[in-house]
């Protein structure tokens, strides 16, 4: 990971990525990735499988080196432990207790074990696990231990790759609450990737959308919410018949299911129902939604949000 004094002096961004590229053999995994991650943000990386999210996180955490471009980390003194991360799986010794794992992490960072260890255990809800080996923890507990390990050095940046992957609803809730507390109470910048976009949307303040190794769009959560697009879904007995009716009203409808038609925009319910009745179509339900993360993502990279 490179450092750039000029960038540090001028920016409030924790990470500045500039023209980052990475290849595995002849395959280009990332190309010309350029964006900044503001301090204190929860930055969501969104992309399909194989888009390059995990590779990007590995580059950010120093696990791998860029083939092109640079990544500038803007933390105090480039100190050991300034970045905490879980990449793929929580990196823990399964034959040791939560406490012993943390002791090793303190040693890894060259820090003395003090009362902060117990505070961390309490913070992630593992204070009462005693001598139980981490190998016997649930997946959620392991993830929380992994996060505790990542927090040992009081990091300014936390990088989490799919932190809720494989967790049950309770586990997802625990990790989400933990991350929200980290962001709000400790002001830690968090970079997070997840396939569960609805979950990500509950955490992230900023997004980078990655497709085929390139960043196709960066946006704040506020910008996505205010994208201004509304979508109307009509459930009816004969979608084929209602298409010309909606086209006549100036929309571009499309059939999304056997009994469903969707179009961008909204129309008065009475207008829709009466026009449809005139065309001999019986409407059973009309639903209007604002643009969400999933729709925004699909709008960028293509595909069907309703599949």
């Amino acid at each position: 990971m490179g450092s750039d004094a000029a960038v540090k002096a001028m920016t409030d961004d924790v990470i500045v990525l500039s023209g980052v590229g990475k290849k595995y053999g002849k395959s280009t995994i990332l190309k010309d990735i350029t964006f900044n991650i503001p301090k204190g943000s929860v930055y969501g990386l969104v992309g399909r499988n194989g888009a390059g999210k995990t590779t990007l996180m590995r580059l950010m955490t120093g696990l791998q080196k860029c083939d092109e471009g640079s990544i500038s980390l803007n933390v105090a003194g480039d100190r050991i432990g300034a970045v905490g991360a879980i990449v793929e799986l929580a990196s823990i010794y399964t034959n040791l207790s939560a406490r012993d794992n943390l002791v090793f992490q303190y040693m890894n960072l060259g820090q003395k074990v003090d009362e902060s260890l117990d505070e961390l255990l309490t913070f992630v809800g593992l204070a009462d696990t005693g001598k139980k080996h981490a190998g016997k923890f649930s997946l959620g507990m392991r993830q929380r231990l992994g996060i505790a390990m990542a927090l040992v050095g009081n990091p300014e940046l936390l990088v989490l790759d799919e932190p809720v992957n494989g967790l049950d609803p309770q586990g997802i809730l625990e990790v989400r609450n933990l991350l929200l507390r980290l962001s709000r109470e400790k002001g830690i910048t968090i970079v997070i990737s997840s396939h569960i976009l609805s979950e990500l949307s509950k955490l992230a303040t900023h997004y980078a959308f990655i497709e085929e190794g390139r960043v196709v769009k960066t946006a704040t959560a506020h910008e996505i919410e205010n994208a201004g697009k509304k979508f109307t879904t009509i459930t009816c007995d004969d979608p084929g018949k209602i298409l010309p009716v909606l086209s006549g009203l100036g929309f571009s409808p499309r059939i999304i299911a056997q009994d469903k038609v969707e179009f961008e925009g909204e129309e008065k319910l009475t207008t829709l129902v009466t026009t449809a009745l005139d065309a001999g179509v019986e409407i059973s339900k009309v639903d209007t939604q604002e643009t969400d993360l999933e729709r925004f993502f699909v709008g960028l990279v293509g595909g069907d949000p309703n599949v």
Partner: protein
Amino acid sequence: MFDLIKFELKRIKSSPLSYVVLALPLLIGIVSGAAGVFYQSSAMDLFTVDMISKESLARMSTWTALTGFYSVFPIMGALYVTLFVGNDMSSGFLRNKMIAGHKRSDIFFSYVITQTAVALVEVVICISAALIVLAVNRVQLDFAGGMMFVRLLVPVFAYISMIFLYTAFTLCVRRRALPIVLCAVFAFSLSTAGLISSLGNYSSSDLNKYLSIGERAKADIDPYLKNTAPVQPDYTADPDAYADYEYVDDLDFYYDQLLTPNKPFYYVARVLYIVTDAGIPNDYRMSLLDTSYTEELQTSLSSYVNMEDSFLMSFADISELSSKIDGYRGELKEVDVTVKYTTLNLVYIIKTLLWSCVWIAGGFLIFRRKNIF
């Protein structure tokens, strides 16, 4: 790096596997010491009195006790290093070290340094146990004026060289099982290659000279032996056959079995011998006895003389025979087939140091560049 070394030492201390690995050398040391005692036992004297002097026996016992570790440690080390260092890879903790901001070189050398330390502790435990067993049994020790300790550096360096290889290999291969299997296979292979290469590691020109002298000696001495075979009126009716059995066949054995080069594997074994550490145990064992191959020819003559006392047989005057044999032995000794101690030490120490550098440098280069996380 100091933090990482402390980290590794604590991990070694808290791992049950480490205690097993440190207990095994104790056991191996006791067995090595017992083997040293065995060499000097009365049972062995019966068979070796004519072959090896008492001084050589003392050196043999000492050497056996000091180097007993070398037959087992390479395999034990392969299993320990691959399991222990591999655990950091499979648990993902290696990622924690890199994410924390440690340099790859610091991580790599922290493993190398701590695993070397463990290897040295294993050796010290094993040798101490062996020497204690010898001392308790009041076995005569002979350190060859301290040269034995210099020579001991060679198997110790060779073992550490293997530890470097195992560490580097474990850190360069992501799969957990592969390093374990390959390192164990490597250790087994080296042991076998050592045996093979030390059988065929002579220089071909020296060997040809040696054989040529041997053939002349045989042609000269054989008829003389048959003509002066012992008379054994009460023991056997066929003195020629008896002489053939006791003496001539022995000569054939030494000439044909020990000295005839096995051409098919000579070229493989010679290369292995020159390039690798293969051959340490046999080379050192051979040079240790203070008997070159030429001196083994004397064995038959010794047996011949001993029979006079043992079986009360009547012999012809063997002084002329002795003189002939001594003459040929003198010629044979001029052909230096056996490598001298100092040369042997120097060659092996250089080879092991070079290999250590190859393993470390190669392992580090791969570890630094490879995307294994």
